[in-house]
């Protein structure tokens, strides 16, 4: 600690220090830390790959799903579960990731330290949402590549299917990101964050058609799932990746993309308002 510090000469008072530029700088920093956290990489990033592999291995012997009476046609188990795994990835990358991440940062003092710097909460949010978008897109693209080349699942070729994929994905993942920020207020400590968040995420996945065939669930469970966003993300993804003949198996016999958009938009507003109301650098006077 002996080197000399250059004395301050003049102190230029820049007005507002680019919120957006700082936000972009945060994205790079956040992504780097994301991939250094073993827990996150395993339970958020790789989890859908592992589940897709397990389902394919476990149920392939039972033959295709949605076959004709004579046993022909239908799609492979992997192809059937792919949309659910993509939806689960969105939920994990957005909601589970940020809820646990931010609760942890609150618990270990990271947020308190940032709150003492001229970093705007807006730039911090840009960093988090950007981290979710980049890692979520990377996860989805890798999942599609693995599905196509490792599990030999045919992907749609029609451009309008991919357009649907794009808006369902972006709207869903951003909604989940804001819901994650809002949910991060719930755990009382960073250490309890996983214990609070993972059960919520797990139950949603079971009732929303990610792990279990949605049309095989009792009607009341389908109705309960319909109150939450994951069911709609999974339905949107099924409309992209399953043959149109499968639309008949949906709750109302159609993909209902208009309802998908509306449900996700409502949850986006809930997430935005919840984030705005609950986010604090520190719990004042706790």
């Amino acid at each position, binding site marked *: *600690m*002996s*080197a*000399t*510090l*250059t*004395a*301050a000469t003049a*102190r*230029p*008072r*820049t*007005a*507002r*220090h680019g919120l957006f530029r*700082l936000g972009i*700088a945060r994205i790079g*920093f956040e992504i*780097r*830390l994301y991939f*250094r*956290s073993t827990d996150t990489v395993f339970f958020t990033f790789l989890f859908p790959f592992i589940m897709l592999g397990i389902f394919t291995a476990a149920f392939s012997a039972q033959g295709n799903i949605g076959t004709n009476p004579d046993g022909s046609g239908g799609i492979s188990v992997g192809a059937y579960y792919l949309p659910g795994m993509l939806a689960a990835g969105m939920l994990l990358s957005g909601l589970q990731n940020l809820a646990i991440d931010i609760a*942890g940062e609150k*618990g*270990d*003092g*990271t947020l*308190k*330290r940032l*709150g*003492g*710097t*001229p*970093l*705007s909460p807006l730039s911090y949010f840009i960093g988090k949402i950007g981290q979710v978008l980049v890692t979520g897109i990377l996860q989805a693209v890798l999942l599609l590549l693995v599905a196509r080349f490792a599990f030999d699942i045919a992907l749609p070729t029609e451009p309008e299917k991919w357009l649907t994929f794009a808006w369902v994905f972006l709207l869903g993942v951003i909604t989940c990101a804001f819901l994650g920020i809002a949910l991060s207020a719930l755990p009382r400590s960073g250490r309890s964050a996983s214990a609070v968040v993972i059960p919520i995420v797990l139950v949603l996945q079971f009732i929303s058609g990610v792990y279990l065939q949605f049309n095989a669930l009792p009607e009341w469970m389908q109705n309960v799932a319909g109150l939450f966003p994951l069911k709609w993300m999974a339905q949107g993804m099924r409309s992209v990746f399953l043959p149109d003949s499968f639309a008949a198996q949906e709750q109302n016999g159609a993909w209902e993309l208009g309802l998908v958009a509306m449900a996700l938009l409502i949850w986006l507003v809930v997430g935005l308002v919840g984030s705005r109301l609950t986010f604090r650098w*520190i719990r*004042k*006077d706790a």
Partner: protein
Amino acid sequence: MTTSPPAVRVARLSKSYGPFDAVTDISFDIRPGETFALLGPNGAGKSSTIEILEGYRDRSEGDVTVLGEDPQHAGLDWKARIGIVLQSSGESGNATVLEQLKHFAGLYPNPRSVDEVLAAVGLEEKAKTRIHRLSGGQQRRVDVALGIIGRPELLFLDEPTTGFDPEARHQFWDLIRQLKAEGTTILLTTHNLDEAAELSDRAGIIVGGRLIDIGAIGELGGPAARTPKVRWRDASGTPQEVRTDTPARLVAELAGAAGGEPAELQVIRPSLEDIYLGLVRGHAAGSATQSRTTASSTTDSTEVLA
């Protein structure tokens, strides 16, 4: 000559958490460029006070001005002018020292050079190490580095040298002297009284949420508290202790009377730690019988040292 406004002005500050009064009616000023130490036992209200000044907590009563603004409502431009070293950090620290410093430098409009700060805290060799792999003392140096990277006008140091080895502590003191020389105003809390004596110009002592004394480091506790003690063992072997303002004369008399060296002769000037302990104990004893009023100016508090 005009006197510049104080960097920190605290007037009749009180803070309560529900029924518990953490801070009661505290007033003090810190001049620009001054290093001011807040001393006091654990739980005395130091951290509540400093966190109100940093903008982390809202006050219950009183007025607080820090660099001309009320920290409760100050914006990002104000935060760019202060630096904070919090009491403890438990960050998971997946970033390397260099990454963390570069990132934080980017948050400020006029940061110090990252290399300079790394050198100043003696972490050049650990630049590429992830923070969670550093020792406790080294992590504390990262905290200090992050506190000064933005070239703050006012630096808050809440127990900055916890976990430092003696060498690191002396290096840290050198660093703080450099910052002082540049004109940085510093508010320091510490349990290390040597550190307070070494670095600060003035100090305030908080006990039980009240400021019981404030003044220049050389004047705390008043003249009576600093009266030197002369100790020796007399001819019969009995230990003797006399407090006197003229210790040299007493020693000369003793030497003359004994016709040689008095046994085990010591002249002791009370250290800041002695004075501090005297004040804190005196206050504890005093508050049992009477409620004291706050010493909000540099009055000497000899009565508590009876």
